[in-house]
């Protein structure tokens, strides 16, 4: 398939989906992670276990959920447990192989901020907060992150440590008693990043088709390191692209139609 008509967002979702395997038990964040996980399930990893923090285990939604608690997730799940059980038996219990997160702000060590812009006590922008992320980041065996690149999002220094990645790098996780691997993969709309084995700083290991080093640096707030043996990400296959587009089309059709009788309608970009 020609790369020309593939959007960067599509390339990001598909590249992220490839990192997941049939044996993974994946704790899925909403948005880009959810799309990637479901593309994996609908292509090369049909037996992957997807878990959303609302308690749905082994879910197989036909359309992408708008929230972590959509009815579709429960209706297609193997089982649905309470939220305390989800966080105690399933996440803290060490059963999650991949915690898949998005990020508002991230630094080169995979530390994530979704709490505040500015000072915590007097924030410029009050963001939603961490939700499940602090313990997804510490209890999952490894963490994947996916987000579109921007200087506002990929920063030299995050304003708040919502969830801990590699801290200041090196063996910082180990020093805190964290036995899990932390962030091992960052997939953006431009590139695939992995932590340097020593410093743990994210390093570009693969550029998506047509993306230049300059484009990566221009949308990233820290000085970018590129791997010596830099790859080019294989373009989406027909199956991957068709699967993703069909999923998005089903999602839009499903979420556009329904509205209640008592409230006025707002614009629907869902």
């Amino acid at each position, binding site marked *: 398939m020609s790369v020309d008509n593939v959007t960067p967002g599509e390339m990001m979702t598909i590249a992220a989906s490839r990192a997941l395997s049939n044996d993974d038990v994946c704790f899925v964040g909403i948005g880009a992670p959810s799309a990637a996980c479901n593309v994996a399930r609908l292509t090369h990893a049909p037996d992957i276990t997807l878990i959303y923090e609302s308690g749905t285990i082994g879910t197989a939604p036909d359309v992408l959920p708008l929230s972590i608690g959509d*009815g579709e997730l*429960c209706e297609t799940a193997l089982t649905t447990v309470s939220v305390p059980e989800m966080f105690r038996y399933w996440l803290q219990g060490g059963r999650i192989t991949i915690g898949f997160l998005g990020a508002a702000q991230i630094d080169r060590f995979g530390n994530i901020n979704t709490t505040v812009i500015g000072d915590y006590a007097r924030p410029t922008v009050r963001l939603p907060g*961490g939700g499940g992320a602090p313990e997804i980041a510490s209890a999952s065996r490894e963490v994947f992150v996916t987000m579109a690149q921007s200087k506002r999002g990929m920063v030299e220094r995050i304003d708040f440590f919502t969830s*801990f990645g590699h801290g200041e790098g090196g063996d910082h996780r180990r020093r805190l008693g964290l036995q899990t691997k932390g962030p091992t993969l960052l997939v953006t709309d431009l590139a695939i990043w992995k932590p340097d084995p020593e410093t743990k700083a994210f390093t570009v290991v693969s550029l998506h088709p047509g993306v230049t080093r300059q484009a990566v640096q221009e949308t990233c707030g820290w000085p970018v390191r590129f791997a010596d043996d830099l790859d080019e990400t294989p373009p989406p296959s027909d199956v991957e692209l068709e699967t993703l587009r069909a999923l998005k089309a089903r999602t839009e059709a499903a979420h556009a139609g329904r509205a209640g009788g008592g409230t006025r309608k707002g*614009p629907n970009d869902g």
Partner: protein
Amino acid sequence: MARFMPLEEAVATHLKDGDTAAFEGFTHLIPTAAAHQAIRQGVSDLVLVRMTPDIVYDQMIGMGLARKLVFSYAGNPGVGLLRRLRDAVENGWPRPLALEEHSHAAMANAYEAGAAGLPFAAFRGYRGAGLAAVNPNIRQVTCPFTGEVLAAVPALRPDVAFIHAQKADRKGNVLVEGIVGIQKEAVLAARRAVVTVEEVVEDFAGLHPNLCVLPHWTVAAISVVPGGAHPSYTHGYYERDNPAYLEWDRVAADREVFAAWMKTHVLDAGPGVFAERVAGLGVER
């Protein structure tokens, strides 16, 4: 012992100024009708507790009912930020709002400890996370066998919990199905619980033995409010009203638009409007 009563009476009886109140629901089964009744009642100085404050907490905060919020994720699910909450936190409008912020794991464990009658919950959490430095209610406890240091948070014990559920039987037993969230724990952790339900059935005979049922003696009041979770959804009854969540982003962006919307849709309305609001959202049963 559960008593059936109109929602107006249930809220008036069980929600008082200064209460610590949890209106719980995890995307599913959000007790919107009860929250709107609390707004109409005009209660003040609440400490609002919820893992996932969304539109109804944005409304209560925007109306100035709350002095403090205990929470772990404040967002308009699938849409973005909560603009009335932001206005309160960033600008103190209409009044300043104190925040006690946790992670989901901490809140879930804290409700669980409250339901279990324990004073605190221990869990492996907050390692390297910034909240531990800004929230004095995040402490530590040491395992007396391994020496491992775990995070500790105080149990949540709200004065009153509000939840929405599918149905009650005539004795006042309550059934919650689907994404059950944190509702059972919220009810058992609270001193009083008020439940709105879609309908009342004769009894629960024939139900599978292992479902999520709250016995009538764990609930103070039950009010029948069909559609009472709108724009959230009730598994088996009606679907989520996604456009309403998008609309809220527009309404909440402006103080005056917000005030006008609240007058029309909450202050001048009553519990009866919820049935109409879900009329177009039914699922096959």
